[in-house]
């Protein structure tokens, strides 16, 4: 890990009193490499390192550590702050007048349908009445997938297999939710590329039609440099509320989390920690920071 890599550097520089460019040069290099290996976007790394370096220079060094060690701590603390802060507790307060409407969007295969089930369970286990809406009209058996998830969770699913209009399905589903006095509506949408104009227009129209209270960008934790491109475009088109980061049960370092946060300014709120519907947790900035730094 980063601390092991820098132990040699630490030993040599103990006893210096202030952080200077010279005495953290090696540490800066190592941090930069660690972030790039963690898949943090190139431009984000550049900007982040410059910011942290600026904040660190001139800082007086605590007696028992070396400037490089102190710099690493400043890096870690800054990373935690950017990711949400050490006391961050994501929450989804419900609207005073139901239903609270949630929409999920994102690239193909990122985990939207599974996350729709997970969010459904998150609310239904607190006694809330949830409706899942199957608005993916393209992927073979996408509707079946959400129906199976709903059935296993004892949650209603609105679908219309004959309908080839995602906007209509969302609208009709919302109508049904109001009639059925649902507390929460969760709309699953088809995976799409941020550069597919027709499909981006479709998801914009779904949003305009149902006016969600929360719009999530669902992103795969193993996403590489491209994370910035997709997140920026989805945020520009949909004004997302926050991010659900999936498949964090793998060993990808998850630099995409920092890239997405930097690019959109939007909060990371939940993480998927497995394929089961109970494998869903609140996002923890400090755990993510340690994971990214390796």
């Amino acid at each position: 890990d980063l601390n092991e890599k820098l132990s040699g550097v630490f030993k040599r520089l103990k006893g210096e009193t202030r952080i200077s460019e010279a005495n953290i040069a090696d540490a800066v290099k190592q941090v930069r490499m660690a972030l790039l290996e963690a898949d943090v976007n190139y431009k984000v790394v550049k900007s982040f390192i410059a910011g942290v370096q600026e904040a660190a220079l001139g800082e007086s060094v605590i007696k028992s550590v070396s400037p490089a060690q102190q710099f690493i701590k400043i890096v870690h603390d800054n990373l935690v702050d950017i990711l949400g802060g050490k006391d961050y507790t994501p929450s989804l307060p419900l609207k005073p007048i139901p239903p609270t409407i949630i929409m999920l969007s994102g690239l193909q295969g990122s985990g939207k349908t599974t996350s729709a089930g997970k969010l459904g369970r998150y609310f239904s286990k607190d006694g809330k009445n949830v409706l899942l809406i199957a608005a993916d009209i393209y992927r073979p058996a996408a509707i079946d997938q959400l129906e199976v998830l709903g059935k296993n969770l004892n949650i209603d699913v609105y679908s219309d297999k004959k309908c080839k209009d995602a906007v209509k399905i969302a609208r009709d589903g919302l109508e049904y939710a109001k009639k059925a006095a649902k507390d929460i509506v969760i709309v699953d949408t088809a995976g799409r590329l941020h550069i597919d104009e027709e499909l981006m227009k479709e998801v914009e129209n779904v949003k305009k039609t149902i006016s969600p209270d929360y719009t999530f960008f669902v992103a795969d934790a193993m996403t590489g440099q491209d994370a910035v491109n997709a997140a920026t475009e989805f945020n520009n088109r949909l004004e997302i509320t926050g991010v659900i980061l999936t498949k964090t049960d793998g060993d990808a370092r998850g630099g995409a989390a920092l890239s997405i946060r930097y690019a959109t300014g939007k909060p990371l709120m939940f993480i998927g920690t497995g394929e089961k519907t109970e494998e869903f947790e609140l996002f923890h900035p400090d755990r993510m920071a340690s994971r990214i730094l390796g």
Partner: protein
Amino acid sequence: FLGKKTIDDELLENLEEFLITADIGPQAADMIIEKIRTEYTRGTLKDAERITDALKQTLTEILSDVEEFNEDMTNKPYVILVSGVNGAGKTTSIAKLANMYKNAGKSVMLIAGDTFRAAAADQLAEWGRRLDIPVIRKEDGSDPAAVIHDGLTSAKSKNIDVVIADTAGRLHTKHNLMQELVKINKVAEKVLTYPVQESIIVLDATSGQNALTQAKMFKDAINVNGVILTKLDGTAKGGIALRIVNELHLPIRYIGFGESMEDLRPFNAENFVEAMFN
């Protein structure tokens, strides 16, 4: 870095940004830049305007430096086992491969080896219906090895040319799931009396450096001998392909560039590198 007159620090930084943003990885990027810089210092790369060509050539050489895959059709059926992490594009890629073989006049059968995920077998069955190709499946929750066993037994008895077996997405960090894959592979070999001819890992081009770990772990587990790189119709460049070829000596067999059954083409190093620069 296009249009620069000399190889200076700014050009090298632009080069580095280009390579890293393509997901080639920081260490591989450093090596490639070092190679370019050495050629310039040695004089084999005379001017900076040639740098784009030199880079394209270096990348193409790296991607071509792997033994070409030999489609050995000696034994029948020809079996392709498809594996990979969750959501990479396995099931869709199988539909594309099936379409390709069917268009080449082969009889094809599909095996719905994902018995775990909601509606996984339904998804493959729908593709089979569109392709008019038989799909062998069992109830959800069955042992995937049992489906593979039944599927291959049926394929042999029906004299099928090509069998493509789908498996559930799984993270390489999950030991029990990797063991399940090992078992599936063993059962397949037992039924066939020969190892599957193609063991393909499907990798998502939008994934970062973790794709290399995935490929390595799957290769160690079931002798993966080829890669399908999907979602290249997006903005990700799939630069991890360089490390996969260079460090694991795995050939990239096909690339996926869309969600329809025609959106698959054989990998071509020059075209792939050209697309990186667009």
